[in-house]
């Protein structure tokens, strides 16, 4: 496999979610060279997998795709996907960043994205872009608007039948590719590694890992996305169009016992958004949100919440004690109402969505001695004046790496990280 990584760049950006994309565009537009390192096969981060965005209900991929294309076509931005950042070392004149380019098992320069390999492959596997709800092949292009449009052959699922190689018109399948480790020198680094959502099993009483009709908030985004796995909102146990859907708020936030004592900030708003979209997709459906308090913190968010109430979405102030299921795999939610006397009640739904907490995507931080806050998010060195600055000179952060936040705040921080990185290079190097 030929590697096209530049060994030197002005600014190296780790992660290509909306934070990384926006920082890259701002920095490159100022005349500096940027290299983006993204561990997934496509750029775009979580935002490209969302359905619509609160509070405007604009289509998420309609906003993200043009930014992905602008990054891919920018003359001063080099994008390396399917490449993992392993360690970052501070040096006298910047940073040495050790990365590993993972093998796609195709010749990237020759591939014409015709998908013939994917059509020919006989092995079906769970689709991680659909968070396990959809199906793909052992060799596949990650999703419709992935950038780049290059397939990945998943070694652990390949039965080595040779079908993909036989149909490839450009002879670009290469079963013998190896990972390529290398080091890139950068004058400054912007880390935008974003977040993960808490594991579905973090609260055993909710049985998120065992009950098929208890799904994650990101799975719910895919159910609602225009190119989602089923093409319609269906429940995963049997494909039924759900009549009754419930959201469990703070499903793994604000809970000291599981190590996530903080509020994840966006869950109330995305649950309200998803509930409104469900109300549109399933006019006969009944949608309930079990919550302790609704945190509608941003501009226009309170009106958004009020709009959801006026649409008939059922907001029930209650603690959810546990979730079980009946013989038809309908989830049964045991609630403890907080308003009308605290009598435990079992309520059966067709589908339950857990609004899980947001966790930092890394805690070891590439071997750098960076200051993290008590929850593992990166601590800003100057929260008021330069929120992107860290305790390491020349290393800046943007997006949810610093703590849970919505897309507008992420984009604003990405711009701030870009300005700090540009100024740092101009003033110091």
């Amino acid at each position, binding site marked *: 496999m030929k590697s096209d990584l530049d060994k030197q760049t002005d600014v190296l950006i780790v992660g290509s979610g909306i934070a990384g994309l926006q920082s890259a565009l701002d920095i490159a537009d100022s005349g500096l060279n940027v290299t983006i390192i993204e561990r997934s096969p496509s750029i775009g981060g979580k935002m490209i997998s969302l359905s619509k965005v609160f509070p405007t209900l604009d289509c998420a991929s309609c906003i993200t795709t043009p930014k992905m294309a602008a990054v891919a076509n920018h003359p001063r931005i080099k994008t390396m996907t399917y490449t993992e950042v392993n360690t970052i070392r501070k040096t006298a004149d910047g940073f040495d960043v050790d990365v590993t380019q993972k093998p796609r098992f195709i010749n990237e320069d020759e591939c014409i994205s015709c998908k013939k390999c994917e*059509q020919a492959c*006989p*092995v*079906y596997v769970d689709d991680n872009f659909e968070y396990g*709800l*959809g*199906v*793909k*092949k052992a060799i596949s292009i990650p999703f419709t608007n992935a950038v780049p449009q290059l397939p990945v052959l998943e070694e*652990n*699922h*390949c*039965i*080595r039948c*040779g079908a993909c*190689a*036989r149909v490839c018109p450009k*002879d670009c*399948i*290469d*079963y*013998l590719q190896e990972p390529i480790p290398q080091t890139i020198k950068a004058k400054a680094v912007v880390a935008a590694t974003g977040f993960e959502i808490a594991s579905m099993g973090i609260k055993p009483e909710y049985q998120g890992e065992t009950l*098929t009709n208890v799904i994650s908030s990101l799975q719910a985004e895919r159910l609602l996305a225009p190119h989602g*796995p*089923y*093409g*319609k909102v*269906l429940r*995963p*146990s*049997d*494909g*039924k*169009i759900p*009549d009754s859907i419930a959201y469990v708020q703070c499903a793994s936030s604000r809970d000291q016992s599981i190590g996530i004592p903080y509020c994840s900030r966006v869950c109330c708003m995305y649950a309200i958004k998803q509930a409104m979209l469900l109300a549109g997709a399933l006019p*006969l459906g009944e949608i309930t949100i079990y919550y302790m308090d609704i945190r509608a913190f941003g501009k226009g968010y309170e009106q958004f919440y009020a709009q959801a109430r006026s649409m008939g979405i059922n907001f029930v102030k209650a603690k959810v004690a546990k979730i079980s299921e009946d013989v038809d795999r309908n989830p049964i939610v045991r609630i403890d109402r907080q308003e009308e006397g605290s009598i435990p009640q079992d309520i059966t739904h067709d589908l339950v969505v857990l609004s899980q907490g947001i966790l930092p995507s890394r805690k070891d931080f590439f071997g750098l001695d960076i200051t993290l806050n008590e929850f593992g998010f990166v601590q800003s060195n100057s929260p008021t004046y330069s929120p992107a600055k860290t305790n390491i000179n020349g290393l800046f952060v943007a997006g949810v790496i610093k703590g849970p936040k919505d897309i507008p705040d992420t984009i604003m921080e990405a711009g701030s990280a870009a300005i700090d990185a540009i100024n740092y290079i101009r003033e110091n190097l």
Partner: protein
Amino acid sequence: MTQDKDKNKAIAQQLKDLTAKKGPVSPTLLAYYKDSNQKHKKVLDSIKEKEKTVPEISAETGLSTDIVLWHLTAMKKYGQAEVILAKSGYLKYIAMHEESKS
């Protein structure tokens, strides 16, 4: 024709080198593939003549409803089945005939 032969020979050699380098394909993976293919075929056969819902296919094939949905999702994505929409209850699925695929 000779070109095809050369191509196939080169692929066979690469796969041989791969096995020499990494060992044979794991028996667990091969068993998964065989089992999954049989289920896929069962589901596809069940909707060849008539459109059916997931529970109907499940009752006919003896496969669990979630497995049936998984294979139908694959068929829909790769052009082997199409969906007949419904407003409530269950969607119906029917196999696509060769001529309608192209």
